[in-house]
């Protein structure tokens, strides 16, 4: 069981410049000696190789995620339930973070475009199902064609078109 530590108190009616600096003993330095560990360059290289080896699992997961996106998209189209957009957003947000790690930056870019759309859309307006479909379809193409890296000219054009469509929808 751990013990709790109090938050440092603030005096009554402190002036704007009041502050307290709290220097603490560096206990982590004792726990992590600077010698005896792995060679950092080698460890980093191995970590990168491990990520590469996870690519096959990533691709399986990407396919499953796209299936889920389609399900959420259909649900939203049929019900206009905002929770379906929340589900889409959270899943795409995670996909966006993983795409570039595993060599699929187009997934990251498409995800970024969708997340920007949902985040910046004024509260009084609803997400359009067509834009959801366009983003999901674009991800599907990247997945099915195994488009690693920045993709070809057509892929680049699709990503730019999505971004333009989002800007237009946002009125920018």
């Amino acid at each position: 069981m751990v013990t709790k530590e109090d938050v440092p108190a603030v005096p009554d009616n402190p002036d704007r410049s009041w502050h307290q600096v709290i220097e603490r003993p560096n206990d982590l330095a004792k726990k992590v000696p600077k010698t005896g560990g792995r060679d950092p360059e080698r460890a980093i290289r191995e970590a990168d190789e491990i990520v590469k080896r996870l690519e096959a699992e990533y691709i399986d997961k990407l396919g499953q995620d796209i299936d889920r996106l389609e399900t959420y998209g259909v649900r939203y189209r049929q019900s206009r339930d905002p929770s379906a957009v929340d589900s889409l957003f959270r899943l795409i947000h995670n996909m966006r973070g993983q795409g570039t790690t595993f060599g699929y930056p187009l997934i990251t870019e498409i995800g970024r475009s969708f997340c920007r759309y949902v985040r910046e859309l004024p509260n009084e307006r609803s997400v359009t199902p067509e834009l959801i479909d366009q983003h999901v379809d674009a991800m599907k193409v990247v997945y099915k064609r195994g488009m690693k890296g920045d993709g070809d000219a057509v892929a680049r054009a699709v990503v730019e078109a999505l971004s333009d469509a989002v800007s237009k929808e946002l009125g920018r």
Partner: protein
Amino acid sequence: MSNRHRHDFSQLSILIVDDCRFMRMVLERMLQALGVTKIRFASDGFEAWEQLLDSEPDVILCDWEMQPEDGPSFVRRVRLDQDSPCRYVPIIMLTGYTEKMKVMKARDFGITEFLAKPVAARSLHARLVQIVDNPRPFVRTASFFGPCRRRLNLPIFDGDDRRGAHEEIDI
């Protein structure tokens, strides 16, 4: 230059908080390659809080977007909740890219370091070394409690993709 050293992370305990099981696995494998052996997991802020009450980690690696409790709410609770068992624990926040202003504001949650997505092993290693070798003092003001914000490294892309690093920082 820190990389001349061979930091031994084998006794460092890290709590990974991420709602994506796959990302938890990726981070775990990366940390293991760097020599970290004591790794625990939670899928959101509430679950992480339960773990803190049981045993205090040395470092928390926390995603931003999670449900039911997201990263910023969890960090605020760790820093300021009266029952927090470890309000000084270093917290590395994982982020994608968004507006710079948003990240600047996020400093106020009490984050120790940012780590940009996609996560690169080199950046992860650098953040751990930074936390161990150069711990930031904490600052208490009338409206803030957390690591000194003047030394906070804002997220930038690592590797080849540095587009927009000057403006677009996505969370």
